[in-house]
């Protein structure tokens, strides 16, 4: 029995036991359901083994929505706990676990997955490619992400959640101050999903550089593809830093090394530096694809071309470069003196310049346009003022002397939610609504979508604007409680109310998917939005080979060009199409990674060794495998095209 003691949750509560039961019941229900409907074979053939970028993208987005739910529940619990002074809904330890997992789940497993899912679905279509450069690797990326996400999520029912904050500063995260296995979970969940992200980065850079349709020069790429390219370059350069930091953290916790210890020459500040050398570029990994989506949506629904294409590209390149030069602003208060702080203060503020250029370019895109207020456009219009507020408070935080007062307060919390929610989450919802018909062939209901938007925006303002004030009034972040005399009570209650509205928005958005699935007409045609870029030149939903004939383009708005100027996108004849084969190796390998991570968390070395052998076995299998893919014949293509209504 002693062996099993380690799996017990160190700080159990009725809530956690209830979640255990709920998780177990859900799992049983899912398994029974799939077995009853005899869907195991379908699931394996069509989803678990798929290498199709569209399906992988869908799986990313479904996972992201699940994680949004998990992270959202964490968020609501935090707001509920702090809604009134001296509340006793959560105790300190649970509150610490909840805000730690909220941060990680939202950043790594929700936002990243949403973005990568969006890139998976859209980028190959926008550049007229059949798939990504390495479809098999793409499946591995997804399954590694998924294994990492699941590993992170079992922590709270087996062994305990991490409790040192998402920034996980040492020595607090060391074994002296965080004895449960929670932080081990943090290390391995991030490590495994980070590996997947790095592979995605490589995959998409090659895809975008090497698989563009004939005629599509770099400066004729749609803006979302540009943002994806730059994002993936940042991923490739930022994630290895995290890999090493996590490796050192693991060694410190599980092998007694002294990297970040305060004894034997270790340096706790090294973790903070490495974490933010990765962490700050990570912020731009999140926001740049969002900028890409807004560029597409605003141009489409203003029915005009994007203003200042070149400066849009230039500003993104500049942002990506500068994102590596500002990490110190996350700890101005560490005492490096005014010179270092001054330099990083200036580099940080300088990022506001390219960002400002983008805001003005979007405004000028609307100029002389013909603006339609669809759901994606509403999100984009809401984004501009809200993100500007978030951006300018960022500039305020960048002033080092003032940051000594904002640092670690609710002001900071308000700021980064103010950029991430209107920046990233709005963009993802805009993109989801915009490209939904592309993937599923039917539209999401506009009315429910608009209700969702209003609830989300108003809820957001009510939830986060009060935090600017409580921050300036001295409320530190991550406090599980506060006394009545502080006077933080009323504004925190308002925040909780706003969080409730955001929860309603989430329910509306999910309900919209269900409602539209049941009621939306299926004949959306090829061009439901009067769109401009190349992905709309093929059918809705997209056939597995994307384009029956490789398109030839000569404009960044290829589809618009073909509609208005009569450009012939498809001059060539049908030819047989080469497609990659499905493979079960990625999902099996990710299974081994999960076992590896789980065993490592609990220092069960036999499991670690066996899982490592499994992982290497999968790699060895892959190198000896002789897989040349398959061909779709011209007859099959003609058949499919006829089914979609008319050959192209």
């Amino acid at each position, binding site marked *: 029995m002693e062996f099993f003691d380690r799996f017990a949750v160190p700080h159990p509560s009725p809530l956690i036991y209830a979640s255990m039961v709920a998780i177990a019941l859900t799992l049983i229900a899912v398994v029974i359901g799939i077995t009853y409907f005899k869907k195991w074979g379908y699931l394996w053939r069509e989803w678990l083994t798929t290498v199709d970028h569209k399906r992988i993208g869908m799986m990313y987005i479904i996972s992201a929505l699940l994680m949004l739910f998990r992270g959202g529940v964490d968020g609501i619990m935090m707001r509920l706990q702090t809604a009134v002074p001296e509340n006793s809904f959560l105790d300190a330890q649970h509150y610490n676990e909840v805000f730690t997992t909220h941060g990680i789940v939202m950043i790594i497993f929700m936002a990243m997955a949403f973005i990568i899912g969006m890139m998976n679905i859209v980028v190959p279509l926008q550049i007229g490619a059949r798939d990504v450069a390495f479809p098999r690797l793409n499946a591995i990326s997804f399954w590694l992400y998924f294994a990492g996400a699941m590993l992170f999520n079992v922590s709270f029912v087996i062994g305990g959640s991490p409790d040192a904050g998402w920034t996980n500063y040492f020595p607090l995260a060391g074994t*002296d101050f965080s004895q449960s296995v929670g932080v081990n979970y943090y290390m391995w969940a991030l490590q495994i999903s980070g590996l997947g992200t790095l592979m995605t980065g490589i995959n998409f850079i090659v895809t975008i550089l090497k698989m563009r349709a004939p005629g599509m020069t770099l400066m004729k790429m749609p803006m979302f593809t540009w943002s994806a390219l730059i994002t993936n370059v940042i991923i490739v350069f930022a994630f290895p830093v995290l890999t090493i930091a996590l490796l050192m953290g693991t060694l410190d916790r599980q092998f007694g090394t002294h990297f970040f210890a305060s004894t034997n020459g*270790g340096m706790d500040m090294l973790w903070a530096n490495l974490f933010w050398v990765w962490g700050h570029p990570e912020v731009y990994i999140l926001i740049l694809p969002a900028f890409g989506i807004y560029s597409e949506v605003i141009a489409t629904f203003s029915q005009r071309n994007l203003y200042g294409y070149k400066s849009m590209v230039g500003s993104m390149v500049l942002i990506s470069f500068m994102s590596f030069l500002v990490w110190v602003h996350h700890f101005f208060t560490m005492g490096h003196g005014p010179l270092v702080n001054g330099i990083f203060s200036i580099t940080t503020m300088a990022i506001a310049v390219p960002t400002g250029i983008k805001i003005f370019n979007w405004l*000028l895109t609307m*100029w002389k346009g013909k603006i339609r207020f669809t759901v994606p456009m509403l999100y984009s219009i809401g984004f501009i003022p809200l993100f500007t507020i978030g951006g300018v408070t960022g500039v305020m935080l*960048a002033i080092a002397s003032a940051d000594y*007062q904002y640092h670690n307060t609710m002001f900071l919390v308000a700021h980064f939610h103010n950029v991430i929610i209107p920046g990233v989450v709005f963009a993802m919802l805009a993109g989801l609504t915009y490209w939904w018909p592309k993937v599923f062939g039917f539209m999401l209901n506009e009315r429910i979508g608009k209700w969702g938007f209003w609830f989300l925006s108003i809820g957001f303002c009510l939830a986060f604007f009060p935090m600017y004030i409580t921050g300036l009034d001295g409320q530190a972040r991550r406090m599980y409680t506060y006394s009545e005399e502080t006077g933080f009570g009323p504004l925190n209650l308002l925040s909780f109310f706003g969080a409730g509205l955001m929860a309603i928005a989430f329910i509306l958005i999910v309900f919209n998917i269900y409602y539209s699935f049941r009621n939306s007409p299926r004949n959306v045609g090829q061009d439901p939005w009067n769109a401009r870029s190349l992905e709309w030149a093929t059918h809705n939903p997209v056939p597995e080979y994307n384009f029956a004939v490789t398109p030839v383009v000569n404009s960044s708005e290829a589809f618009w060009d073909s509609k208005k100027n009569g450009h012939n996108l498809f001059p060539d004849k049908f030819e047989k199409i080469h497609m990659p084969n499905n493979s079960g190796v990625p999902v099996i390998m990710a299974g081994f990674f999960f076992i590896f991570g789980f065993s490592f968390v609990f220092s069960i070395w036999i499991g670690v060794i066996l899982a490592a052998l499994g992982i290497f076995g999968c790699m060895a299998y892959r190198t000896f495998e002789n897989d040349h893919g398959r061909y779709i014949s011209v007859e099959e293509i003609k058949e499919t095209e006829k089914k979609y209504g008319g050959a192209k």
Partner: protein
Amino acid sequence: MKLKLAFISFAILLTTFLAGCEPLLVLDPKGPQAETTANVIWISIITMAVIVIVVISLLIFMIYKYRASKQGEDYEPPHIEGNPLVETIIVAIPVLIVIFLSIVSVKSTYEVETVPEGYENQEPLVIYAASSNWKWHFSYPEQDIETLNYVFIPTNRPVEFRLYSYGPITSFWIPQLAGQKYAMADMVTKINLVAETPGDYVGRNANFSGEGFAENTFTATALSNEEFDKWIDEIHSTAEPLTEEQFNKLLKPGHLGQMTFTGTHLDFAPAPEGEHAGHHHGDESEDETNTEHEDHSNH
């Protein structure tokens, strides 16, 4: 519509800001350092408010003027590439604002990191502030006393806090007197501040440090010079001396009320500065003599 709402909520926010029943701590400074930061914050709020208002006005103009329902059926929006003049303007304005704020930032950062103007000639009062889970230990080496979870300082005299930590990174913060600075285990960081008004000020650790973090607070009381001296004398006549054994007991994780001792823990547990700094050498410093340390630093 959306914008009106966003704008109204922003306006409400600003008014609460300006006309709140009690002034916000950070914007209610009681010493020159906090006053500098409060001024910088006001400058930046005003500058940034101008930007927000400009952007929102432009946006309202665009979506009002160019909404589809207002245009004719057959209106075809023109194709417009970038315009060099416009793009120069949208680059130049942010650049000018950033230059302005950079100057403010660098200048004020130097100001708050040094002894405030007008106090340079006075000898600062040195107080060591060490955090342990979840307490603050204040040592006055000159006065040879130590307090727990509260600190008395004289007004109109520069005070130099030397910060370090027995445990996780913490952040020393008295919002009405000065901004934060981290306290860490292997080095000493410094805050210079002056209190100009007598009174009790809220102080806390602002950096998350585990279970007892929320209650990791202290009170900073500013007294006139005479009262401060009187307080010192009083302690020397009433308080017990701090022993090493007792200090180690105090370090154990938990919460304790306010306590007062004569003598400081610095005598038997020196702060991690000078030859005791943690970067190059181990933590065995307590057992070793100073000469051995000098040996080490010759490597």
